């Protein structure tokens, strides 16, 4: 196992998180370099994820690295029945770093144990997606000037949303106050409440999405997905409750920024896009800088 791998956000200490975020700021100032010259990076996407893949490939290209790999499992030998173990053993002989997206949970940890080179997890099923968390943190740091003592509001599907869970864990280093706004069916899982209680983190739960957001520094929106509901009637009841509209922002704080991991469906009304507090498209661009910093750290560059 190569311990420079990034599989789960917990693999980084608070100091490492801050180190990578500082590095991301440097990459934002000077995105183009040759520090990956002569390096080959494998980009293994066992399931398609255009946004994440393009973000990684842009990051690698801007650092002068070469990319080999595939964009979905049907064009890899997995379709012939090769195990992940064998694919990773073979690919780690060819390249200096592996970026992997895989639908099976725990696949990234397993790959990092099989591989001789570092593995960066670009999403393993519903489990972890740490580079998303790092770009979320970078977006928060950039817009608020700090990660400490912020009022973080999370809205929508807090039960299944892995981005919510990983961000919660990462922010726990920085004394946040959380507000969770979700239907009862999609409330934050008990395991995370136990975690926050243990770590003395203040949190509040709400089912109403209204003027309580006037206290927020960050509003982190997620999509409420129809397929999460056993009863379609329950979905119909809540589907329009957690939609952010521009008029809800009129009394919010000036420093408030709205984040969303994207893709959005209807949970943020289009009229919000023009509001200077909308930050989700810049957030996506920050992903390139955050990933440049993560790659550089994994390769000790």
């Amino acid at each position, binding site marked *: 196992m190569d311990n420079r791998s990034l599989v789960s956000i917990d693999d980084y200490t608070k100091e490492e998180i801050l180190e990578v975020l500082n590095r991301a700021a440097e990459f934002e100032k000077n995105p183009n370099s040759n520090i990956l010259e002569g390096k080959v990076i494998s980009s293994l996407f066992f399931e398609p994820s255009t946004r994440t893949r393009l973000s990684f490939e842009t990051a690698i290209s801007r650092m002068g690295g070469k990319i080999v790999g595939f964009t979905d499992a049907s064009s890899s030998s997995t379709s012939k029945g090769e195990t992940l*173990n064998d694919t990773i053993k073979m690919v780690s002989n060819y390249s200096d770093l592996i970026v992997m997206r895989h639908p*099976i*949970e*725990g*696949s990234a*940890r*397993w790959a990092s144990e099989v591989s001789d080179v570092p593995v960066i997890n670009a999403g393993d*099923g519903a*489990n972890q997606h740490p580079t998303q968390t790092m770009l979320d943190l970078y977006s928060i740091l950039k817009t608020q000037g700090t990660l400490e003592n912020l009022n973080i509001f999370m809205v929508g599907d807090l039960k299944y949303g892995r981005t919510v869970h990983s961000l919660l864990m990462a922010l726990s280093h920085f004394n946040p106050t959380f507000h969770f706004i979700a239907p009862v069916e999609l409330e934050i899982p008990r*395991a995370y409440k136990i975690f926050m209680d243990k770590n003395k983190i203040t949190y509040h739960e709400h089912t109403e999405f209204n003027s309580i957001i006037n206290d927020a520094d960050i509003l982190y929106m997620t999509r409420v997905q129809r397929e999460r509901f056993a009863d379609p009637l329950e979905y119909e009841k809540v589907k329009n409750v957690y939609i952010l509209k521009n008029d809800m922002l009129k009394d919010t704080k000036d420093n408030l920024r709205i984040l969303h991991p994207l893709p959005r469906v209807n949970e943020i009304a289009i009229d919000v896009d023009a509001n200077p507090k909308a930050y989700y498209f810049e957030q996506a661009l920050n992903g390139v800088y955050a990933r440049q910093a993560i790659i550089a750290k994994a390769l000790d560059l």
Partner: protein
Amino acid sequence: MTAKKELQVRAIKNGTVIDHIPADLLFKVINILELDKCSTSVTIGNNYKSDILGKKGIIKISEKFFEAEEINKISLIAPNVKFNIIKDYQVVEKSVVEAPNNVEGIVKCMNPKCITNVEEVYTKFKVMSSSPITLKCHYCEKITDHKNITIK
């Protein structure tokens, strides 16, 4: 001293007596301790009357003494099992099983989408709580609780 009860299984001279095994878990205990590979004499009895369990199993293994690690594996399925160390027909030590810190290779992860259930990967768990036993998968990071523990 209480009156000496009639032994339900013949005594052994040296070895280990495992008592108070819930009857329905006897064969799992045999598997976990890999008694099928044991070369000394093993006596296995089941469905004996027990005041606490209703029916219980007993295993007597001659000339065999278990490491704490092996004993603790049993805690995953049956936390009240007792191990008696016998030397020259006398019980010289009694130990109740304790939950280990880590569990490797014995338990199946309850998450069907976990890599350990898709490929041949040796399972690894961290013990989050010992009673009731709660395990966190090293790979998929999901919790397997005491109600869902299956022994491989």
